[in-house]
């Protein structure tokens, strides 16, 4: 039996113990994902809280025949994309350079990567568009296989593949532009 579904049922009945169990299992992944997508710790924290509030409000709409995690991430993704659209109404991934690139100093994700793997990789990742950061995070951090990745993004598998390649290519391009050799070692 899937514990997520049991806990979702408890939450639906208003039992906060169900919520505690769900949070315990998913909070790290959810926070990481929001931080990657939004690129700002304070905004990610707000989105994290809003996501769980919406989960509590809308748990009645969750289809118990399906896994909980993709539904949770879909709620989080909608909130995050709404925020990004309000902040920058144009397309989230059409422009190769963000108007105000996230710097390693401002982005905790980038700071952490810089400490452990080198400033150039951190800088390059932080400067990617939100949707590029999102797909890289889902694949490499959350270790989602392609079908789950596509489901989370709400796109067909070939589109997910194309997005993944595009994000990798843009990251590599950034690295090579700054340091043609040994860029991410």
């Amino acid at each position, binding site marked *: 039996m899937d514990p997520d579904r049991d806990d979702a049922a408890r939450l639906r009945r208003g039992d906060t113990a169900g919520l505690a169990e769900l949070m315990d299992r998913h909070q790290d992944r959810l926070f990481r994902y929001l931080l990657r997508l939004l690129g700002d710790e304070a905004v990610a924290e707000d989105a*994290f809280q809003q996501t769980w*509030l919406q989960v509590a409000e809308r748990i009645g709409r969750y289809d118990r025949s399906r896994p909980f995690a993709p539904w949770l991430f879909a709620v989080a993704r909608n909130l995050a994309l709404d925020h990004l659209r309000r902040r920058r109404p144009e397309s989230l991934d059409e422009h190769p350079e963000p108007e105000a690139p996230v710097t390693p100093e401002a982005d905790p994700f980038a700071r952490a990567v810089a400490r452990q793997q080198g400033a150039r990789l951190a800088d390059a990742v932080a400067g990617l568009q939100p949707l590029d950061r999102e797909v890289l995070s889902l694949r*490499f951090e959350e270790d989602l296989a392609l079908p789950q990745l596509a489901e989370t993004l709400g796109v067909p598998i070939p589109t997910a593949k194309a997005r*993944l390649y595009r994000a990798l290519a843009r990251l590599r391009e950034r690295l090579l532009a700054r340091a043609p050799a040994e860029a991410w070692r």
Partner: protein
Amino acid sequence: MSGHVAELLALAAAGALDPSEAARVEAHLRECAACAAEAAEWRRLAEGLERMPPLRPSHALVARTVEAVEERLAERSERAWNRAALGFAVAFAWTMAVVSWLLLDLLTGELALRLDRPVGPTAAWYAAYVIAGWLTAGAAAVLLGRRTQEEGRIA
């Protein structure tokens, strides 16, 4: 190197190829030194991404979130109770109004004649009672409707 080959090499490093595609790429890499070098670079990039540090929400954030959700659940429970109570009030008021009409008819009809009671004051009192009942029911219905609308906007 074509863009398609670059895409295959990048996706191979990301573990995003199906088994037959991956096998074809592996076979090609055994024969093509340029592609093998390119593939090694993609793999280094993928490994760098896989080594990203695990980030976690702070305990304070988790505690704040649990508290906020518990408050929201309590509000939801209270709203549900209020809605039920209001619904009962509406149903009760309408029932009373209907029953009052029947009583009024009874009291101003044969029963009043049998009791030999004056019909005028009784009818006036019951008419007032019925009107009050209908007004109460209407007001309750309006309140219920407005509350439902408000909740719809919040949700």
